[in-house]
């Protein structure tokens, strides 16, 4: 067991640190929380990711020939730690970097690998994920969007829903049914779909936050060339699961970091807010709750570090790897609830009120966090996976 870094890794940390110090805009640090409605900051976040990319801090573990840095998960972890410490803004093209890119690198043809990953990193092309449908959520394999062969193309008809970023995305990771007669897991194909193709209609869905960050996407005779198939026809289920595995692994770092940034910001707020006639951080009950959140956040970090160690040693992920997403969700929702409790009656005031604490950013974060236990696999599905694949309990 050894937590020390090599001198190369230490140098990488120094380089990230000084780069971030000079690049993060002061007004961003003053915002107080990372849970800022993305809709308000799209242009800024797009420029920010481009800057990160120019600095060589995106796609750290991706191979160099596809635009990455060819480094290990240790550098990836260092990067995210430093970004947390300095309250760096999040990535905009999060689905592209966390999911589409690694999946294309794993399954793509050489042509696909040369075409897509680099533009994902530079944020020139934004990606969304076309998985869920009105009748296929947790039970994803029941998806009904059809792709029918026509010459050297496929014609897509159907509908996706809860599609984050679709309204600004250039590309979609699309799962569609190519063989309706095959067993349901066997007849699905993974397409790389150009969102600007005729017949694609995006309708924003207003969320409980009042913002419209996710969408319905309709396909009306959308033609996709066969070279846009990723990983083979009718092999989409395996490819799609790979995407989900990368989602849990790669986004895991980012999630952990955002949690830590939010926690630091929340503690900062707690020092400025009074409750029951004294500053929140002097109240013994609130101290207990804040300390527990600190501990839970650290636990997630070290559980993640154990999973990384296994990866670095070339071992299969152990039980600790499967608990990350669920653990993050529970802790993050607890954090957002606690932020409301700290604010007390002030938690009712939103953006637009001069009386709102920190300009009302916590209210957005609190509402947004309710989606965490649904998106990317509900907590109930995560528990099934842990119960069946890790503990070996029988399927229901």
């Amino acid at each position, binding site marked *: *067991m*050894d*937590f*020390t*870094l090599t001198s190369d*890794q230490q140098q990488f940390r120094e380089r990230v640190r000084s780069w971030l110090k000079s690049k993060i805009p002061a007004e961003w640090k003053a915002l107080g929380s990372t849970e800022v409605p993305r809709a308000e900051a799209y242009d800024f976040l797009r420029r920010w990711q481009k800057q990160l990319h120019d600095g060589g801090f995106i796609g750290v573990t991706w191979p160099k020939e596809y635009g990455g840095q060819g480094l290990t998960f*240790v550098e990836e*972890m260092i990067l995210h730690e430093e970004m947390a410490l300095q309250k760096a803004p999040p990535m905009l093209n999060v689905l592209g970097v966390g999911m589409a890119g690694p999946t294309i690198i794993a399954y793509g043809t050489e042509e696909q690998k040369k075409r897509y990953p680099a533009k994902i990193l530079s944020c020139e092309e934004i990606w969304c994920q076309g998985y869920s449908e009105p009748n296929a959520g947790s039970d994803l394999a029941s998806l009904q969007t059809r792709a029918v062969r026509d010459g050297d193309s496929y014609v897509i008809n159907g509908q996706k829903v809860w599609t984050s970023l679709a309204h600004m995305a250039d590309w979609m990771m699309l799962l569609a049914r190519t063989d309706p007669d095959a067993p349901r897991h066997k007849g699905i194909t993974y397409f790389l779909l150009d969102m600007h193709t005729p017949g694609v209609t995006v309708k924003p869905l207003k969320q409980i936050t009042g913002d419209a960050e996710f969408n319905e996407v309709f396909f009306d005779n959308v033609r996709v060339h066969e070279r846009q198939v990723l990983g083979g026809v009718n092999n989409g289920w395996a490819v799609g699961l790979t995407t989900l595995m990368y989602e849990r692994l790669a986004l895991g770092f980012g999630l952990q970091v955002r949690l830590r940034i939010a926690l630091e910001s929340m*503690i900062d707020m707690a020092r400025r807010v009074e409750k029951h006639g004294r500053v929140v*951080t002097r109240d*013994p009950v609130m*101290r*207990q709750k*804040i*300390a*527990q959140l*600190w*501990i*839970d956040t*650290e*636990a*997630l970090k*070290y*559980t993640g*570090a*154990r999973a*990384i*160690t*296994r990866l*670095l*040693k070339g071992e299969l992920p152990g*039980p*600790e790897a499967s*608990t990350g997403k*669920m*653990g993050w969700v529970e802790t993050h929702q607890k954090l957002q609830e606690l932020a409301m409790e700290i604010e007390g009656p002030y938690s009712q005031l939103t953006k637009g009120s001069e009386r709102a604490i920190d300009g009302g950013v916590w209210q957005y974060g609190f509402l947004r966090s309710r989606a965490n236990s649904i998106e990317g696999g509900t907590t*109930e599905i*995560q*528990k*099934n996976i*842990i*119960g*069946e694949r*890790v*503990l*070996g*309990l*029988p*399927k*229901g």
Partner: protein
Amino acid sequence: MDFGFNQEQELLRNTARKFLENECTSEFVRARMAEPAGVTDAFWTKLAEQGWLGLIYPEECGGTGLGFVDLTVLMEEMGRAVMPGPFFSTVLLGGLAIFEAGSAGQKKEWLTKIAEGQAKATLAFTEPNARWDAGAVTAAARESGGKFTLNGTKLFVLDAHVADVIVVAARTREGKRPEEGLSLFLVPRGARGLDVKLLPTMDQTRKLCEVTLHDVAVGADALLGTKDGAWAPLARVLDRATVALCAEMCGGAQRVLDMTTDYAKIRVAFGKPIGSYQGVKHRAADMLVEVENAKSLTYYAAWAVDENVPEAPLAASMAKAYVSDAYRRTAGAGIQLHGGIGFTWEHDLHLYFKRAKSSEFTFGDASYHRERVAQLINL
């Protein structure tokens, strides 16, 4: 960066598991629960032969010179077997206090005896006030003519009834802060004025005593380390023992999870194994998440105390706060998912449930350590 165990440590784990499966069976544990001593001479000799009684002591004191990460592996296995007896009190309380505070001569004498299995020791720190900080100590040691006279009552003292030497924390001076003026004394078994009373306890695998000191006279050579300067070494002992206890608790929690999932696979209700029902499956998943996080914090704390990094006290408190809750909840869920059989004396679950409860309140419970975390992160 490497957050895993090395080959030697995995080997130690395998050796320990096999040894304890053979030597520390449920029958053995239950027989020890029913007796005052909690250990047999034969078992103690075998622990010495394995080299475990001196695992963390330096070689010049008869030990193996291994670290807390190595010890973590062993403690997990001992927790898994819900091992009774004075191993913890001897190696991690009495012995560790001598190691942290003692002179070269005191260390050589006592640690060698402990490592060889010739002496058992314990630490008498807590008192009826049930505190775990420096303010716990009100017992007094009066100096006169180069000798000390000890008076006071120590409570919740682990295995004092079988200890050959009790390390007693007492005040030699009233300081401005409770951390000042503390000293440690080696009080031998049978000293005049020393009264040791075994207390009936819920967790019968852990023997607790009340130790009364009534004008117990000891010489200057009984002073362990420097007079008035015991808090620094004591704090290190408490942090290290806390981490070792956390490891033991993780091992116990993992065992409960294993027993529960095994049972959920074979126990049939309504025509299906109960583990196929989400009501059971999801609770088992919750147990796994808590057990894995408990291990993560414990392993990190073991590394931190081994390396003596500045955040070691914080790491120890984070671990104890989390593991205290996690083991209690895991053991409770284990009984619930077993149903009626889990509530019987015959089934081993209650041994773990009770060990979880006694461990929860040893070295400070979750709320004590959460407040300590709050202080250490400058909240």
